[in-house]
């Protein structure tokens, strides 16, 4: 054994020292690198990385130690006890695992860092000293405890630094950053520092004890090479794996970050971004999307939006279909609804993503609000439309105007009314066919000329002042009778003057041709009516004047009548603005006398008057008129008077038309005069008749009464011979019959003239009949007639004049007795029928011939066959009966067959009916 105080000199192989340092750096780098991987990894990957990392790192540290040990050479052979060597390796791996675990955590507080570094440092130190303990050599190892402690502290401090650096730089994404390299260098330097400090703490003294060589190995230079190579390989493999894994992870990270960026874009984008199902359910969207639809935020939108709202538009079908077919839509425009229902126009790009594994497809898209643009476009469109339609309307209007202008031309040409347009320069601009025809002027003579310049007739008329007035007042003016003589014919126009901006329009309506005909017709009718209605000549003349004045200017009108007995001409009607009515005069040589003499109408224009004067037919009379028109008033062929109108004004002239009218009126007047004369005669005749009847009846009755009374007295004489007495009786009967006739005549006359008033009172026809039958019973008996009367009980009373009805019944009963041969049948029936009472008498007499039936009730008429029975009779009886019945409101009629008999019956209304 070596003396104890002796120290074995140790030396270092510096190449191996450098190698150990290099291995340390490499191991550090590996550790750093792996720490990042462990951090990034999760689950099994993390455990794998942790385990693998720890082994690689532990191996690195361990091999660095043994390389360092090999670098230290002692003068004695050194061997290493294998189990301890393995234990030291495990210690290194354990320390590495702790380190990796600590640095791979999300956070590293001071306490975990301290604990981790202590464990790691202890592990490394443990590994070192265990490794030292594995040495088998024939020397004694002694430790300087201060240095040992220093080495342990260094191990811990270095571990702390290493952990800190590793933690700090593990995030370095890039494969090899300069920070990682620097920290690897620091760590790689620190670990040998700790190793060599530990080595320095150990000193070897010689020992006589032979080393236990069992299970001890010698580390040859070949072994060093093997350890180095294996370490490098392991570390390199670890780094490579880490690198590859990091590349892969980097891709993942890149992906993750692009997702984040996408999310950021998604959320911050001003465009609306959405993800929806094909059915329109919103899966996700951004705030912008929600804002476009009127929601304040995405959250509100997702919470509130009804399913399908997004696609709820008319374009939905197009949108969905196109997306299904083409998978994508670009710059698709459509109109959607906002939350408040307002339309919102969007421009969108969308993609349809097929669902995987049967999941429904999803549409992803972006959209921007183009509502304003759309509105602007719409406005523009509208404006364009408006402009287009305006121009279209204008076009149409122009066409319409052209059409209506053409039509207007046609209308203007088609109307019969004359139409004339005069410009401001007084030149005629329009002269239609109506004007050509009614005013007798061709347009080529008028158009472009001053109207009054080429139309003197118009200039003389009332038109020029009317035109001036219409233009001055600016209002329409109507000239009701514009008198014009055109080509020798007199015309009356209704002229209407319409002033307008560019001139004046004048319408000429020839009322002489159209309305005038109606007017004339109406007036002539009135003339006829007036002629019939006039009660006096004065009436007639006045009415005539008024009618004539309606048809022509007849301010001055007179009627003269000629009395052939006195040979005087009188003027019973004379209206004149210059002359007073002339006194009745003997005929002289006036126009009136000329017409009377010739019996023909005369239109006396100045030239005609001149001519007649020259011929000596007439002489001047009264104020000379401009125009005089006279027509004869004729009775048959004789002229009995003259009707004349005259005018003193230049503008008023008469023509053929006036002559016709006046002739007609004069004829009516003549008829009226004649009628009045006849009426007057008739009236006096009627008066005479009436007077005569009254007179005659009175004058007849008085002597008749004388005869009657005288015979009455005579009949009372005593001692009359029978024959004388019978003569007196005959006389009395004759007188009585004559008195009856006179009375009948008087009654008829008075009933007809209305002088006899009926005095109706409630009367029983039954009683009247009985009374009459009592008076005539002797007569009936004498004739041997069979009489039957029926219905007397049931007949109601009637309102009639009883005295007159007694006459009616007497008359009819008498007739039946008289006109029925002896031994005949007389049947009287009476009774009520509805609202009437009927009274009838039927006889089996000679009857009434058919020819006589109709005239039976006429005055003085007697049936043809009555003369067989008697010749006397006035023919007044039935007439009187009819008058009385009818004046009482009843009817009377006769039904008869000649030689068989007659039935006379009358009906009377019940309850009065006195007409």
């Amino acid at each position, binding site marked *: 054994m070596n003396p104890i105080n002796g120290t074995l000199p140790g030396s270092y192989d510096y190449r191996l020292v450098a190698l150990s340092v290099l291995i340390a750096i490499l191991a550090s780098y590996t550790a750093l690198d792996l720490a990042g991987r462990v951090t990034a990894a999760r689950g099994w990957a993390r455990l794998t990385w942790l385990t693998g990392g720890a082994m690689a790192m532990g191996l690195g540290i361990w091999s660095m130690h043994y390389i360092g040990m090999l670098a230290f050479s002692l003068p004695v052979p050194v061997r290493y006890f294998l189990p301890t060597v393995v234990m030291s390796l495990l210690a290194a791996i354990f320390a590495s695992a702790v380190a990796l675990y600590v640095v791979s955590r999300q956070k590293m507080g001071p306490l975990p860092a301290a604990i981790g570094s202590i464990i790691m440092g202890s592990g490394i130190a443990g590994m070192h000293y265990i490794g030292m303990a594995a040495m088998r050599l024939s020397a004694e190892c002694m430790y300087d405890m201060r240095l040992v402690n220093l080495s342990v502290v260094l191990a811990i401090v270095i571990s702390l630094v290493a952990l800190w650096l590793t933690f700090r730089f593990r995030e370095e994404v890039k494969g090899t950053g300069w920070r990682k390299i620097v920290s690897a260098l620091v760590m790689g330097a620190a670990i040998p520092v700790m190793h060599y400090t530990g080595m320095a703490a150990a000193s070897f003294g010689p020992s006589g004890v032979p080393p236990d060589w069992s299970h001890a190995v010698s580390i040859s230079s070949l072994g060093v090479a093997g350890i180095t190579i294996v370490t490098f390989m392991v570390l390199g493999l670890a780094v490579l794996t880490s690198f590859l894994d990091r590349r892969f992870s980097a891709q993942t990270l890149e992906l993750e970050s692009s997702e984040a960026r996408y999310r950021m874009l998604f959320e911050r984008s001003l465009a609306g971004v959405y993800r929806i199902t094909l059915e329109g359910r919103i899966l996700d969207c951004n705030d912008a999307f929600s804002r476009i639809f009127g929601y304040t935020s995405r959250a509100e939108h997702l919470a509130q939006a009804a399913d399908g709202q997004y696609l709820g538009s008319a374009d939905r079908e197009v949108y969905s279909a196109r997306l299904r077919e083409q998978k994508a839509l670009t710059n698709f425009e459509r109109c959607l609804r906002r939350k408040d229902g307002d339309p919102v126009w969007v421009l969108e790009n969308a993609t349809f993503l097929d669902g995987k594994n049967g999941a429904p497809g999803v549409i992803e898209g972006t959209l921007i609000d183009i509502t304003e643009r759309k509105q602007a476009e719409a406005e523009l469109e509208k404006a364009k439309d408006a402009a287009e339609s305006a121009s279209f309307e204008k076009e149409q209007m122009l066409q319409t105007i052209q059409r209506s202008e053409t039509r207007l031309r046609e209308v203007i040409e088609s109307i019969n009314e004359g139409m004339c347009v005069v410009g401001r320069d007084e030149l005629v601009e329009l002269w239609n066919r109506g004007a050509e025809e009614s005013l007798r002027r061709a347009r080529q003579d008028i158009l472009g000329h001053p109207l009054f310049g080429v139309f003197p007739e118009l200039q003389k008329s009332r038109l020029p002042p009317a035109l001036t007035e219409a233009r001055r007042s600016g209002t329409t003016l109507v000239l009701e009778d514009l008198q014009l003589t055109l080509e020798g014919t007199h015309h009356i126009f209704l002229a209407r003057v319409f002033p307008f901006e560019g001139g004046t329009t004048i319408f000429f309506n020839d009322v002489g041709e159209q309305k005038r005909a109606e007017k004339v017709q109406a007036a002539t009718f009135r003339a006829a009516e007036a002629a019939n209605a006039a009660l006096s000549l004065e009436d007639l003349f006045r009415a005539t004047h008024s009618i004539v004045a309606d048809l022509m200017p007849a301010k001055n009108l007179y009627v003269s009548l000629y009395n052939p007995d006195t040979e005087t001409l009188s003027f019973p009607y004379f209206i004149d603005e210059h002359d007073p009515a002339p006194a009745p005069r003997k005929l002289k040589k006036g126009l009136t006398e000329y017409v009377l003499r010739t019996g023909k109408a005369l239109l006396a224009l100045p030239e005609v008057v001149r001519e007649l004067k020259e011929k000596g037919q007439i002489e001047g009379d009264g104020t000379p008129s401009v125009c005089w028109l006279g027509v004869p008033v004729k009775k048959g062929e004789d002229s009995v008077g003259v009707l004349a109108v005259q005018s003193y004004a230049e503008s008023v002239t008469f023509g053929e038309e006036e002559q016709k009218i006046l002739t007609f009126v004069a004829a009516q007047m003549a008829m009226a005069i004649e009628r009045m004369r006849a009426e007057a005669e008739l009236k006096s005749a009627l008066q005479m008749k009436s007077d005569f009847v*009254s007179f005659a009846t009175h004058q007849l*009755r008085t002597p008749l*009464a*004388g005869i*009657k*009374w005288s015979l009455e*007295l005579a009949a009372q004489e005593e001692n009359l011979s029978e024959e004388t007495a019978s003569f007196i009786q005959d006389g009395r009967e004759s007188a009585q019959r004559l008195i009856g006739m006179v009375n009948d005549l008087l009654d008829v006359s008075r009933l007809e003239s209305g*002088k006899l008033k009926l005095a109706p009172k409630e009367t029983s026809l039954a009683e009247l009949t009985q009374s009459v039958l009592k008076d005539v019973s002797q007569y009936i008996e004498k004739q041997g007639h069979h009489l039957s009367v029926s219905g007397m009980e049931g007949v109601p009373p009637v309102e009639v004049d009883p005295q007159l009805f007694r006459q009616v019944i007497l008359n009819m009963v008498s007739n039946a007795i008289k006109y029925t041969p002896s031994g005949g049948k007389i049947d009287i029936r009476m009774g009520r029928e509805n609202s009437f009472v009927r009274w009838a008498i039927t006889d089996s007499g000679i009857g009434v011939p058919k020819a006589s039936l109709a005239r039976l009730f006429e005055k003085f008429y007697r049936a043809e066959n009555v003369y067989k029975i008697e010749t006397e009779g006035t023919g007044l009886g039935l007439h009187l009966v009819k008058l009385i019945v009818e004046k009482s409101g009843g009817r009377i009629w006769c039904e008869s067959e000649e030689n068989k008999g007659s039935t006379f019956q009358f009906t009377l209304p019940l309850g009065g009916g006195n007409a």
Partner: protein
Amino acid sequence: MSMNTKRVLLVEDDRFLRRACEKSLQQQGFNVSTARDGEEALRAIHADPPDIVLLDLLMPKVSGIEVLKDIKSDDKTRAIPVIILTNSSKEADIREIESLGVSGYLVKANLSLEELGSQVKQALEG
């Protein structure tokens, strides 16, 4: 009072009628005086008022209506009954006469003398 004492004034211008009428009334027991016209009638009436007047209407000088008016306008004669005895049937006359008040209006041609007597009796009694 017996009818015999009754004095009838017959006013009638026709002499045949006057004669027949006077004779008949006398036969029937009346005291008859006659007048030929209105003038005579008025004189007779005022001189010695009769019990009854039979008055014709159409008469010369003064008409029957004038006479009637006179009778009716005088208090002394107003009460004397008057029977109009005429052949006239003028409505206007009849109305005026009725308004003045008469005891009868008889048409001569339709009247027998016998009937006249009974009418006079009736008027005197009535």
